[in-house]
């Protein structure tokens, strides 16, 4: 940014669901925060650096509730640095990273190590998520107090459900002391068995071991009951079934403190995608039926699904270039999330403002972090998007280390042109802007 810390984003369509603003206006940033939106911003800009946003959309920076940065322990899959680059390229100004690293993020030492790496990367904001249980073993509670003091904003045993309902009940109660959300990966391991694909006609045809929808729904139902019991804030990760949506709708109608996310891949793909045994389509929860996908879209549109979260899960070739049963679960999502969701909007499946809210203000509120909104005084975390640019997904050109995208070769519409974090341009026109160049 130029001297004086001023940046003028001129002539873009500012779409900000949290304030209800949707208008072609100028936006002025001063000292890392939104200083003025609308008439007068251009006159007050002084010697500001100017981004010409004519024909572009100016959105609050996207916030991802569910990212796997893989560091420490799995640096061959991703590092905090490469994950932050992928985030910036996807229009994300903040990511919250899951604790299933090695060692897992169940201690302040690991939390601080992740945050130090994030400081060094100096690109997007990183909000670590701590473990619910020590070592993600589902037995003894992790030290929430230490984790929160070190910078964790939520707890989760993502990748592994807390199977013991008694342990979960106490963890939920204890979480209230810190007012943090507990993010639940809902999967009854006995019902899921050694399944690798959604139980339905496709898995039957392919002979793949099935995972019933009930494996997710049984645990969503348990969490609803435990929220009733404890009054804790529970956030359901990667909802994938119609039945889960119905449970959430009922819980929300009761006014329970439960929120939920869905991923771009569960909103856009079905189990038909696994037909060629492409391991980049192997993910947990599995890609479900068209009826499930359609129910998720309706729930997103209605706000029963609060947020879109990527579950960005980069893997190395060694994890994925295997027989289907042996391949790791997960796919990369940060660099395709926004255009996939805009595609749903274009198809009429979700109103634009709801879709943007699900990627910005909703996750900010769930996590209790600043950003996700462009009101005066808010951090200048901004995504500038060309809503009309068409491009072809080529994972070889991703910023993430992961190449495991089921969207390889897809034509998408909508591309991030620039990402601004705290008033500084971190990504512009296809390239990361390193700190020294800012």
């Amino acid at each position, binding site marked *: 940014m130029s001297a004086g810390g001023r940046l003028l984003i001129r002539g873009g369509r500012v779409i900000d669901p949290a304030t209800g603003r949707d208008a072609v206006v100028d936006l002025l940033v001063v000292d890392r925060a939104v200083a003025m939106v609308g008439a007068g911003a251009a006159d007050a800009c002084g010697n500001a650096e100017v981004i010409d946003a004519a024909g572009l959309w100016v959105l609050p920076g996207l916030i991802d509730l569910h990212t796997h940065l893989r560091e420490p322990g799995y640096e061959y899959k991703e590092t905090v640095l490469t994950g932050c680059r992928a985030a910036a390229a996807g229009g994300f100004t903040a990511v919250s990273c899951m604790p299933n690293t090695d060692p897992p993020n169940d201690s302040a030492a690991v939390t601080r190590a992740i945050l130090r790496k994030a400081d060094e990367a100096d690109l997007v904001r990183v909000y670590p998520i701590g473990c619910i249980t020590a070592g993600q073993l589902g037995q003894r509670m992790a030290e929430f107090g230490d984790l929160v003091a070190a910078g964790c904003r939520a707890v989760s045993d993502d990748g592994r459900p807390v199977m013991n309902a008694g342990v979960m009940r106490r963890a939920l109660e204890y979480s209230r002391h810190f007012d943090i959300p507990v993010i639940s990966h809902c999967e009854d391991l006995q019902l899921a068995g050694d399944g690798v694909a959604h*139980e*339905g*006609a*496709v*898995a*039957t*045809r*392919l*002979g*793949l*071991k*099935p995972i019933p929808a009930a494996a997710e729904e049984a645990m969503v139902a348990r969490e609803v009951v435990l929220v009733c019991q404890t009054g804790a804030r529970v956030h359901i990760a990667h909802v994938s079934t119609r039945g889960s949506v119905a449970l959430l709708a009922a819980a929300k109608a009761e006014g329970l403190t439960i929120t939920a996310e869905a991923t771009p891949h569960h909103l856009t793909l079905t189990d038909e995608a696994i037909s*060629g*045994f492409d391991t980049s389509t192997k993910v947990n929860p599995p890609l479900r039926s068209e009826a499930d996908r359609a129910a998720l879209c309706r729930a997103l549109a209605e706000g029963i699904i609060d947020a879109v979260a990527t579950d960005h899960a980069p893997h190395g070739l*060694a994890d994925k*270039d*295997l*027989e*289907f*049963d*042996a391949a790791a679960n997960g796919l990369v999502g940060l660099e395709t999330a926004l255009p996939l969701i805009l595609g749903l909007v274009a198809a009429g499946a979700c109103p634009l403002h709801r879709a943007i809210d699900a990627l910005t203000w909703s996750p900010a509120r769930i996590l209790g972090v600043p950003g996700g909104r462009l009101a005066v005084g808010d951090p200048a975390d901004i995504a500038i998007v060309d809503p009309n640019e068409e491009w072809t997904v080529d994972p070889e050109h991703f910023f993430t280390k992961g190449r495991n995208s089921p969207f390889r070769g897809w034509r998408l519409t909508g591309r991030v042109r620039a990402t601004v974090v705290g008033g500084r341009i971190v990504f512009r026109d296809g390239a990361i802007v390193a700190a020294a160049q800012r």
Partner: protein
Amino acid sequence: MSAWTRKDLLGIEGLEPAEIREILDTAQTMKEISTREIKKVPVLRGKTVVNLFFEASTRTRVSFEIAEKRLSADSVNVSTSGSSVSKGETLLDTARNLEAMRPDIIVVRHGSPGTPHLLARRLACSVINAGDGAHEHPTQALLDAFTIRERLGRVAGLTVGIFGDIAHSRVARSNIHALSKLGARVLVGGPPTMMPPGIEALGAQIVPRLEEMLPQLDVLIVLRIQLERQGGQLFPSAREYATLFGLGRERLRLGRPELLVMHPGPINRGLEIAPEVADGVSSLILDQVTNGVAVRMAVLYLLSGAHRGATAADAVRGAA
């Protein structure tokens, strides 16, 4: 002259009915070779076939091996239990190493569905699926269709039942594809714990109870119950399965007198099929085994490319 152009045989699902008929017709020619005093023709002389088995198998592996030898191929057996990952070498590394020794055909059996498809995409040599998890077992379905056609003169218009553990059976899936493509009506049934959702989409009709299915059938295929796999979750005991779902003499009488009984083997005598039925006049079980060799000879022959420019009859006439 032959129309066969595929590099691999991965399953029945993607085959055209004409391709299935071509394999069966070729197998008809091949079957005669096994009746000769010198059971060998030089059709695959100089070709190398690797039998790569990641799952235990006696019948299928021996059947392929005999088929290969009767066609004069050089065959090598590689058996490895468990997944290659656990041994520190990936499946693809194992396959690439084998391919570096220039085999012409790899016959693969693996517990994970889609594994032959993965190999076929990556390897230049031909791949034959000898069973991939619960997905497909194409040569079994082909030999079953061959056996039915041999005995009854046709497949089209027949009603064939498949009974037992449909959910975990690659034989059921390949047979549903093969028999329905050849014009048969296929009924499937079994205990509710063994009926997978959406099986009708493959071309079968669900008739859950054996008693209800039997009177409608020309042929019944009884599936093997994998006692070791089910751990008490699919049915309570062998005793109860035999009583409620097994094909005994009494239950067989519900079928027409000319009903034929098949089983892909190995059979559990007294469990899914009573000894008197397995050894009775209705049983085609050993015909299936005999025909398995002929069908596998036909598949090897067609995939090897030796048929180009010749008919199978020409190829085997100049024999040994």
